[in-house]
């Protein structure tokens, strides 16, 4: 697993993917956070980082799909999948190596945004008037959401040997689990169906963690989400054998 992890990280770095992903993420979030009229923190009147935590899931839909789109699709296209799967390493190790490499890249995109926290902390009136608990909760939520997206992206990539198909599919699946499920729950005005449809969506749990309370139920939800999609990836990956 470690060997795959190192190889993936190196390939992110050498193919410029890592730099572009981190730069675009910071640029996009930076624009919303500090420049845009409607969303910038300076005019908002409140010392909060809501803009970051509101926009990041949307930016991630595209960026994480871009990170993961090649993971299996490219190996299938170039045939290296045959090389890697005939080495003494299990499918699970390959998938986990790629998963953690993707997640690491997401973390590296998030780390520089800690600077925003420092900035807003300084700008608060009185100084330091910011909901630190909520902020950490949101960061944990964002990392868990990122992990979910990475697993979804890996699954999408394992379905095809075409990177564009993989990207579009992954972006849609992330968008669907993040937002559409919550909206769909509106179809059922009342009752359990309404609740559980919304409960299935990422946003429900992301919002809950963002309040600053890390509820084990939400954490378990995210871990299950990752497990389900990595499991599906393994299934789809082992299809080659049949």
């Amino acid at each position, binding site marked *: 697993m*470690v*060997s795959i992890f*190192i*190889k993936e990280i*190196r*390939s992110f770095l*050498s*193919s410029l993917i890592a730099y572009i992903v981190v730069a675009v993420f910071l640029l996009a979030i930076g624009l919303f956070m500090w420049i845009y009229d409607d969303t910038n923190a300076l005019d908002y009147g409140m010392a909060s980082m809501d803009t970051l935590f509101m926009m990041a899931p949307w930016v991630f839909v595209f960026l994480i799909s871009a990170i993961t789109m090649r993971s299996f699709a490219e190996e299938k296209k*170039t*045939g*290296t*999948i*045959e*090389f*890697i*799967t*005939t*080495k*003494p*390493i*299990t499918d699970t190790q390959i998938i986990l190596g790629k998963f953690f490499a993707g997640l690491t890249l997401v973390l590296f995109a998030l780390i520089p945004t800690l600077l925003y926290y420092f900035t807003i902390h300084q700008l608060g009136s009185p100084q330091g008037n910011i909901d630190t608990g909520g902020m950490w909760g949101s960061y944990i939520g964002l990392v868990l959401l990122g992990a979910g997206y990475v697993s979804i992206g890996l699954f999408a990539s394992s379905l095809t040997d075409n990177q564009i198909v993989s990207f579009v599919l992954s972006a849609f699946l992330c968008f669907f689990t993040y937002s559409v499920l919550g909206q769909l729950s509106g179809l059922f005005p009342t009752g359990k169906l309404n609740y559980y449809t919304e409960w299935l969506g990422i946003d429900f749990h992301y919002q809950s963690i963002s309040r600053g309370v890390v509820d084990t139920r939400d954490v378990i939800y995210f871990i299950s989400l990752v497990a389900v999609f990595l499991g599906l990836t393994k299934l789809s990956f082992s299809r*080659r*054998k*049949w």
Partner: protein
Amino acid sequence: MSIEVEGLAKKYGDQWAVDHVSFDVPAGQVVGFLGPNGAGKSTTMKMLTGYISPTQGSAKVCGISVTDDSLSVRKQVGYLPESNPLYYDMYVKEYLRFVARLYDLGKQTKSRVSEMIELTGLQLEQHKKIGALSKGYKQRVGMAQALMNNPKVLILDEPTSGLDPNQITEIRKLITNIGRERTVMLSTHIMQEVEAMCSRVLIINRGKLVADDSISNLQRQHGNKQSLQVKFKNGVDITHIKAIEGVIDVDDLGGYRYRIDAKTDLNLQEKLFNFAVETSNVLLEQKEVEQSLESVFKSLTRNG
């Protein structure tokens, strides 16, 4: 036995890509795996290396079942897949280190990598990107990768395809060298390659094993006919030559040249001369054609 294959079969849709094939390869043998394109060579090799699972039958490599304990088999086997897939954006040395890590070589990693670089003659190329290498050097990287774990069994799927004659000679030399103390199974459709490197041939056609013998035996068994290449001054009706008793087959090669296969006990030269006189034609050329492995291959896989 290094490789034991028993009734191995793979079904794609309702077609048997490999149709219940059985053979054994003892340790230290270099075996050529021949067959026309699509005959099932690659599929068989993919099953041996654990890339795909067999539909039926079993295969053992170094006594370990490829279906029950694929991981242990993969540790013993070196495999060069068809068309030699590599990570083009990696550097040669970086790639080989990655391979060494996959085999979990630990402290040996460094020494093993430089050993491989030396063995395959990649010293000057080790700091280049794989994508920037010529096809011959890429093939060497593929060989280095397959040899990293010092495998007892080496499975090479068309190791020389797409190379120029010089590169082919080099790769062949390399294979002959490393084949001295290893079991090697290599697929190819170049006959000279088999004659140069292998002590035994397996020929597969439409998923079925049609021959499994040493090269000399094969030539003897299927060499029970003589072949002549002749040239007449004027065109002849093939059916008339075929009518001569003992003639098996006639091929029109164009330009009034014909290739004639006949039974060995027939005095073909004389018969053809008489035939020419009777039809007031002139026989300009007669040449004996040797039964090569190539013609054995052709006769065994004709319907393919």
